């Protein structure tokens, strides 16, 4: 199912990206790490954005890639963050969260298609897959959340300093609740959720390892063919 749905998700992601470029260009500029407006902007695979120097260090990219992806034209001009005089989001968190999201998505595509290919070679018997592959697939169980949370950071941090794009700034609508109260509740939620995450992973592991009791009245599952041969 993942093998079919993930390419669809990537297509939806492309459409979403084009929509964001139209309505929140500063967010896209931060996602791509583009400081100065330029034609044929490169698709950066790696870089360390530097907010004070307003440039990227150790940049490694595919020439004209960003222009190609965003405007489907390798020579197209991409607006840089320096152009947004009313304020723009911090570049590094948006840039990195976006790479984590896309990277996880690519990993999902590789895992689902690769898994399908390996499974076919093993005669559709999951138990026959090599252990490292199974362990890797088990780890991929968390990929959906990782990608979703990273995407959420892109969209929320990328919106800054606006809460409603172009209309309302976050500092204009913040409540009068004292900062100390916010810090206290944030710490409280982080603690509770860290504990719950730990409990959750442990319970999921426990449930995954627990044999499924067969409902009464159903015949016991047929023994695997290889077992009969041995």
């Amino acid at each position, binding site marked *: 199912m993942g093998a079919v749905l993930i390419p669809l998700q990537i297509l939806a992601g492309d459409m979403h990206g084009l929509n964001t470029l139209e309505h929140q260009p500063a967010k896209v500029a931060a996602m791509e790490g583009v400081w100065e407006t330029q034609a044929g902007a490169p698709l950066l695979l790696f870089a360390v954005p530097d907010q004070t120097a307003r440039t990227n260090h150790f940049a490694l990219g595919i020439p004209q890639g960003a222009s190609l992806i965003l405007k489907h034209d390798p020579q197209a001009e991409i607006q840089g963050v320096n152009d947004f005089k009313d304020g723009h989001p911090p570049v590094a968190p948006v840039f990195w969260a976006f790479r984590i999201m896309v990277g996880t998505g690519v990993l999902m595509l590789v895992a689902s298609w690769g898994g399908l290919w390996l499974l076919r070679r093993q005669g559709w018997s999951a138990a026959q897959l090599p252990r490292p592959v199974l362990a890797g697939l088990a780890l991929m169980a968390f990929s959906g959340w990782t990608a979703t949370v990273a995407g959420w950071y892109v969209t929320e941090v990328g919106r800054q300093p606006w809460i409603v794009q172009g209309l309302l700034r976050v500092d204009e609508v913040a*409540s*009068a*609740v004292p900062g100390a*109260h916010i810090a*206290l*509740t944030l710490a*409280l*939620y982080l603690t*509770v959720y860290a504990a*719950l995450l730990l*409990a959750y992973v*442990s*319970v999921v592991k*426990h*449930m995954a390892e627990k044999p499924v009791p067969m409902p009464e009245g159903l015949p016991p599952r047929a023994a695997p063919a290889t077992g009969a041969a041995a």
Partner: protein
Amino acid sequence: MSAAAFDWATALPVVFLVLMGVAMLAYVVLDGYDLGVGLLLHRATPDQRDTMIASIGPFWDANETWLVLGVGILLIAFPKAHGLVLTALYLPVALMLVGLVLRGVAFDFRVKAQDQWKPLWNLAFWAGSGIAAVSQGWMLGRYITGFAEGSAAHLFAGVIALLLPAAYVLLGACWLVMKTEGALQLLAVRWAKWAWPPLVLGMGLVSLVTPVVSTTVRDRWFSMPEFIALLPIPLATLAALVLARVLLNSKMALGRLCWVPFVAVVSVFVFGAIGLAYSLFPYVVMDQLTVWQAASATSSLAVIAVGCAVTVPAIVGYTIFSYRVFSGKVRELSYA
């Protein structure tokens, strides 16, 4: 056309106020009994705990949708009141949510996690219920005085923070009297008797303090023709309280009349809410903000009304449906 006495700008905010009030009351009564059951959990044997949880299992999360509806209406229909109330109650709301999170997770995990962790999840369920109930009590106490400053007002909120959980325990115990049999039912009768005096104390305290704090409330209740006309409210409350107590003392509560104490206590909550609504109206926040000052634009309210016309009947419908399906005595806890 002649000038109509009726206009939407006046009527719609009142409609939403009534809807919000009903949603909040439904939340307090419905989640009140399941919070109460949670608060009683540590007093029962492990087997009884499973029965207690099973008795609220089909209902508890649907019960919480009423809170979402109530606060949702507060946000979209009365944004100014939402800002004022939730800023004033920031910490207790945050704490309540932690309590509800713990409870919600513990509900599932106590049967799904490894056996050795079950006592810990039971503890989390109990503690979550307690945190949520105490926070709600504090909020009610602060709200009733219109967020008055000073140590007396905070002391009052502190006392309500302890009495509301006791009221929830009474609701929860009466729920168990209705839904269970045998040893657990007898135990529930005992719990209900303990929790009865704090509820009486709480009702009395609120009825005394509100007229003292607010001249608005005093004038409303204690001027002459009104006083007589309003007398049925406190009298009916008193009658319901006495009825519940008398039944709990007799064998009848164990048999066919096992549902009467629960219904009597629920009606105490309903009368209390009617009294409070009469004290407050037209204020959304006592003596500070009226329903019309707090309301959204009439055209916004009209849009929201369309949404509510769909969602509210749906919520009411599935609530009635689930209570019909799961009526009668509770059976084994059968999901794991």
